[in-house]
């Protein structure tokens, strides 16, 4: 383990010419002790379960025994399982409902609230506040909005003498109801990401535009929007990754019903692995979700990396 020969430093700091500082940055095994505690938990609780999950997905397994090797059996069963295919479709449908809505409303709010007034600050606080609530509280609130008779929606419709749409029980509306609750819950993050992008646009470009008598629409189209194009892509990808993981809202608002029409992939995994205890099949479904999310994460990496290259 002793001292290794002094190696050329990867990032030499030009200012330090002291001989002592050369030794400081030489690789040494004992320095490992600082990262060892985290790496222990990282390995045992993330890497091992990740590999174990892949291994499980090729086996027929229940809680305490990891049974027989079935090869791609679980995956083949999955793709013949109508319920699973439905859950994949449901997840994509949900992403399609929420992500564009979140990105557009978030952008709209950021554009309106990007000013130094007290009202704008209060409204920013308001629109982000729902993000700190737990999924349990959010679904409780929205179920009480949608519930027939005592619900807020049916009360408002009642004032006009009509009946509110049944956002939870109507098969064609249930997912939209979940999407509304989700947008309400998640709107803070896209707004904040857009706001921080807007604040990075140099102010002198706007002053130049004002001198050229550009109206607000022109300024928005030719200065603001092009400057935050990358942030827009980023927000979309971040939201795709987040919304792909839909679980709590669907489980608590509709239990995946009616007719599994609001059952997303994570709920399918939960049902299969922890209610039917078919762990192999549940693991296989979670590998498919992992691949889908990994694709989106790769896209995010590429977008952020290009940004770093440019500056």
């Amino acid at each position: 383990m002793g001292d290794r020969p002094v190696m050329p430093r990867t990032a030499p700091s030009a200012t330090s010419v002291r001989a002592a500082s050369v030794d400081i940055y030489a690789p040494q095994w004992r320095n490992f002790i600082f990262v060892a505690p985290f790496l222990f938990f990282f390995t045992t609780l993330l890497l091992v379960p990740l590999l174990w999950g892949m291994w499980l997905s090729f086996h027929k397994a229940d809680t305490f025994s990891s049974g027989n090797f079935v090869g791609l059996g679980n995956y083949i069963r999955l793709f013949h399982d109508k319920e699973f295919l439905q859950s994949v479709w449901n997840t994509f449908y949900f992403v399609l409902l929420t992500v564009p809505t979140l990105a557009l409303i978030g952008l709209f709010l950021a554009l309106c609230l990007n000013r130094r007034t007290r009202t704008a600050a209060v409204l920013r606080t308001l629109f982000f506040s729902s993000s700190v609530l737990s999924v349990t509280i959010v679904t409780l609130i929205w179920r009480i909005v949608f519930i027939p008779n005592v619900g807020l929606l049916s009360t408002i419709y009642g004032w006009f003498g009509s009946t509110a749409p049944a956002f939870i029980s109507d098969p064609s509306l249930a997912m939209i109801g979940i999407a509304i609750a989700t947008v309400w819950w998640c709107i803070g993050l896209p707004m904040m990401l857009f706001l921080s992008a807007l604040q990075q646009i140099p102010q002198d470009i706007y002053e130049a535009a004002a001198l050229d008598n550009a109206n607000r629409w022109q300024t928005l189209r030719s200065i603001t929007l092009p400057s935050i194009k990358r942030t827009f892509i980023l927000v979309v990808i971040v939201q795709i990754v987040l919304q792909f993981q839909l679980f709590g809202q669907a489980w608590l608002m509709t239990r995946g019903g009616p007719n599994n029409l609001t059952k997303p992939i994570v709920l399918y995994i939960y049902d299969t692995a922890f209610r039917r205890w078919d762990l192999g099949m549940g693991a296989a479904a979670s590998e498919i979700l992992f691949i889908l999310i990994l694709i989106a994460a790769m896209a995010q990496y590429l977008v952020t990396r290009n940004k770093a290259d440019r500056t």
Partner: protein
Amino acid sequence: MRAPAISIKGRAFGDRVLLALVILLSVIMIAPVLWVIGLSLKENAELMANPNSVFQAPYTLKNYINTIGTSSVFVWVFNSIIVSGGLTLGTLILSSLAGYGFARLNFPGRNILFVIVLFGLAVPEQAVLVARHQIFSMLNFHNTYHGLILPGLSASFGVFLMTQYFKAIPKELDEAAMLDNASRFRIFWKVLLPLTVPAQATLGIFTFLGAWNDYLWPLISATKKDMYTLTVGMASTQTNFAQSEGIGFLMAQAVFAGAPILIVYLFFQKYIVTAVSGAAVR
């Protein structure tokens, strides 16, 4: 400099449309919460007879008294505090040590290890859920506090954040301390750590909030009622909804659970927004 008069008029009109839209969105944000608070202050029987009674007196605190009288709520809050607090403390310790290690020290395989840790950011909880549950079953970790705390300690985000933060501190500080013959740990503990307090606050609040609101893992791991966290416990009471203890009671519970976190948010807003945005963009 000034735009022509017509444009100013158009601007005023456009402003009014935008303002109206923002107000509408604000109402959509607030109205459900006010409705919930209103319901929580009403007798159940009165609500069932006429939902519009929310807008009239009499109001009552009975639902809140019932909520507080239900001892399980306090057990769940207590569990949530232990789990979120334990996870936050653990994350701060592990991330600070590892962040210092990755940012300042060299050891064989450092760069490849850091890349592997970064890869951890892309792994969603669901991808490891099934295997983790099986491992925890074998170790008898379910329905324990450490069973609820441990999975969160494997998250890479804190290490990533702290590494960035340590890298931003001038190296001359370490080198000066090094000349005084201070040990690595002493430099970390006495010189650098005090400078990372803002990052610790951001990471700490973010971790606490995430753990407090976590639903999926506690739902799977804590199956005994006295080990429920607040999110899981509250979810368990809302299953029977209208039939159960009455809507007002459930709403009082929601307010009881939501209010503290909203108050914390108002105080630490800056840190929370920084942390949440930082975690999303990485």
